[in-house]
């Protein structure tokens, strides 16, 4: 069984499709088996797909500034639905306004995300971190 299936998508009522395509491409090139759910994905759709595909990580994007509302509770839902060990990554324009990134990172980590990324992050670095985390 491939150990590197990941589920990808843009959460909430967010229609930003371009970055999502770039993520799909880069992670595929990096050797991951990518299940891309596209834009406007609900928390349960992420979890449904992760269960059926046996994915070990969910990569959540949020670009439209309402990430905090949309992302809160995903970890709890994962636990309820039997995915307590799944890796959760989140990235994008997670909050509106010039808020210190450390603050944002702390906030999302407190929600149960394993890693939190800024919009400017190098995706190859993310892929490397993901490989390490999956191997851990």
């Amino acid at each position, binding site marked *: 069984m491939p150990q590197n299936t990941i589920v990808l998508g843009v959460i909430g*009522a*967010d229609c930003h499709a371009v970055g999502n395509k770039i993520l799909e491409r880069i992670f595929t090139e990096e050797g991951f088996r990518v299940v891309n759910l596209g*834009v406007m994905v609900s928390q349960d*759709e992420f979890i449904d*797909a992760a*269960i059926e*595909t*046996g994915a070990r990580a969910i990569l959540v994007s949020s670009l*439209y500034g309402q990430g905090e509302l949309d992302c809160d509770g995903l970890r709890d839902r994962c636990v309820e639905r039997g995915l307590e060990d799944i890796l959760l990554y989140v990235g994008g324009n997670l909050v509106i306004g010039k808020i210190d990134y450390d603050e944002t990172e702390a906030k999302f980590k407190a929600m149960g995300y394993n890693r939190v990324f800024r919009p400017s992050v190098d995706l190859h670095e993310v892929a490397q971190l993901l490989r390490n985390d999956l191997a851990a």
Partner: protein
Amino acid sequence: MDTVTSIDIGSTWTKGARFRVKDGRLIPVCREVVPTTVDHLAEGFFGLLSRLKGPKGAPVYFSSSAKGGLAIAALGIVPELTLKAAKLTALSAGGRITSVFPYKLSKRHLEELEQANPDIILFSGGTDGGNETYVLHNLAMLKSLAIRPVVIYAGNEVLADQVCEELSAAGHTAVATPNLMPEVDRLAPEGAREEIRKVFLDRIVHGKGLDEIVARTGRSPLPTPYAMFSLVEAMRRHTPDFGDFLLLDMGGATTDVYSSTMDHASDERIILRGVKDPAVKRTVEGDLGMRVSARATAKSGQALVDWLLGEERKAGFEAFLDRIAREPDYLGESDEEQEFDFILASACIHHAVRRHAGTFKRTFTASGETFIQTGKDLRHVTRLIGSGGYLSSVPSFTPMDVLQPEAERQETIALVPQAFSYYRDKDYLLPLLGNLVPDFEREAARGALAALELVHDGLAAIAD
């Protein structure tokens, strides 16, 4: 060979027709109906066959709606993914769903399964290379099942061999077919569907005289809904000018809806969600029917029924429901009773089509109004076909007024056909033509078009 005979053994009537193959299509030469001889099916069957007066040695094809199709229990993991895919597959094979179980089977679920005693367990779960945990759990549970249905495994292919070996070792019959959902949102029902048809032959043929029919005709029966489904597929392939259509097969117990249309988002404001429906899809509504299910129809469709009925006819309608419950063969005689049948038919169609159709949910996003589409968009379907007892036999009925879209203000909009022509399968030939699809695919599809009577031309209005 230019003459073929096709017979459908229904629960009440055995219907048959003799066709000539001419100019690339099947043309009915004669048609007969006899009561089904329930205790010994061969008696009615061969009585009918002799009345059809086919030349000696002409091939005879047949279908059977025995028990309303095979009883199938469906197992999947996520209700909206593999379990939904398993249900669609079972229905496309002409099956009848007894129970469905998502996630992990419990002891209580096993008892429920034993109670329902299905012919088949359609065991799905996991995409290829995907989830194993739930599948292995369910495998372990199924091994202790006290009943002996055929288990068709159509889940994560990585486990196919293990599932078959372990179930066989535990004394069960298990076969593996390709995964019915190999990737998230991609369906591949064909393998499992074919396997279900094979089980139908093994299970249904024994007893009640069907084996005699098989021996004397040299052919095996198809499940009636499977034949219909094959015909819809054949029409989609061979009569493309007919365009996208919906076929309603309304009987005493169920209303079946078949659609032939692709499921696509027509503009960028539409976001598709969930499992994509296949181009040809069947749904079955067990609570919508004209006789055995008439009471259930009145309940499920209460708002519409009450509205059509009006206060003063309520008591008469109740009495009519009582009567047809006692005498399922009873046909409405008086004007009022015919009106009651019209109301029942309207309720069946209204709800069956709505449940078959997808929906739009309207939401507002940063980029404006957006629609989340789940299921099939039937709004551009331009043709509806009515078949089955009532729809075939009542020439005046049209469903033009019963599908009206809901008021615009609703947050969820049912994607039902909007402007369409209505056709009637006036001699109830479609299931008979469906039987002939395996050997006369193109001829059956063309024959089906010729068998339809245009009742209402809704396309002329669009052209204006």
